[in-house]
């Protein structure tokens, strides 16, 4: 447990930190301690805390609710791992999205997310707009879309849609 608080305070060497991270991933008890220490820290700094089971509740919601997987960043920034997860209950088109910006977060190891397979009808995945890197793919795809047979080049408006920035 001392190691955890040292870890939190950034006092561990890199190799120790990664060991600690691994233990966090494997131990529910350590994760609970991690959450508690952060709550204590927040309280000491006078920041409004959230209840200690927030992570567990979001985790439970995620298991039951649609998952949003945001694209991973550029390859060269790969180690900055940001995953946006959604606990979205869509009512009349409005959804509450929980964005968790995680950096190697032990509560949601990325590996687990990657293997969380969408479960058919229950799954809603959100995606960010494409950035133009695959524009040639989009065009190469379009002729095979049955919509093209039904509406001609009108369906190609997808490939030149304005939100998509073109790159040279």
């Amino acid at each position, binding site marked *: 447990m001392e190691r955890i608080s040292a870890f939190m305070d950034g006092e561990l060497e890199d190799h120790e930190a990664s060991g600690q991270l691994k233990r966090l991933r494997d131990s529910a008890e350590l994760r609970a301690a991690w959450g508690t220490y952060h709550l204590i820290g927040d309280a000491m700094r006078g920041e409004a805390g959230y209840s200690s089971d927030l992570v567990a509740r979001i985790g439970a919601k995620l298991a039951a609710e649609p998952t949003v997987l945001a694209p991973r960043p550029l390859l060269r920034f790969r180690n900055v791992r940001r995953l946006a997860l959604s606990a979205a209950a869509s009512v009349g088109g409005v959804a509450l999205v929980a964005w968790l910006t995680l950096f190697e977060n032990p509560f949601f190891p990325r590996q687990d997310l990657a293997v969380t397979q*969408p479960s058919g009808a229950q799954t809603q995945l959100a995606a960010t707009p494409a950035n133009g890197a695959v524009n040639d793919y989009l065009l190469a795809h379009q002729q095979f879309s049955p919509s093209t047979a039904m509406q001609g080049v009108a369906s190609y408006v997808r490939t030149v849609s304005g939100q998509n920035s073109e790159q040279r």
Partner: protein
Amino acid sequence: MFARSALLLPALFGLGFTAGVEIADPLQDSEALAMLQKIADAARELNFAGTFVYQHGDQVETSRIVHFTDASGEYEKLETLDGPRREIIRNNDEVMCYYLDAKIMRSEKRVARRSFPALLPEQLSALTEHYQIRKGDPERIAGFDSNALVLEPRDGMRYGHKFWAEKTSGLLLKARMVNERHNVVEQFSFTHLAIGGGISREMVKPSFSVSFPEWRVDRFAHNLTTNVESGWAVKNFPAGFRKIMEMRRNKLGNSIPVTHLVFSDGLAAVSVFIEPMANRTRINEGLSHQGAINIYTRTINDQVVTVLGEAPASTVMQIANSVSFRGK
């Protein structure tokens, strides 16, 4: 350092409106097929000019389209009226996309001669196996009376479709794709349309010419070799989808070709592109979208696998996650 806080943000999802539930009016398969066939024939054979809106997510974009056909073939022109100026010109089997803002022209050569809805009997049975087909309520669109056709998916692996065709000619006036919650993911709808006379060949010519060296020409979608055996396979594609084509494409300046596989369930198509990492200067792994087209990119060893199509993200991801090299 570790992120300690979780932010809860309310966000708008989808278009915020829901397609009404309609009373089922079961349709004979042959009737549905005839209607789809009529829509496709009208899109090829009629001369028409109009303005349509394309909606996806919370975006609405207006474009103008002209279709002209004579003994020499089929010509089409689409101009975007909102946002960056872009134009698409089609001369028979060649499609050219002009991105005026970036000075890029992309050309595409059509190879899919026998595409939907020139359906084979087994494709039709696949369609009725995976979609429930019924008539919708007649509606007035852009001043025309229409008949509606609803294709509702029987599982979560595909979107629902609704088509409104002009009563007499069969020309498609409106097309909508909905997700499993009946939220609209994409919609095309004419706001103004003239069918028949008054349309000339002049109206389907490009508005400008491509000059060099200011313009760059990308012929990725143009240059291809069909009937290849790439050795790449998708082990676990969703029910109803089957492989309709396998080809190899060449990218400008890259000697290593890109493998392109296409899967379709008759109403939606999903493409799989496999490209050596060495070809790419940037790779955006994960999920993104362009309109209703979901795009998922992952890497397998030194290959970049990109799967995209007008299907739910889960479908696109399932296909991407089961791509493997099985060897030649």
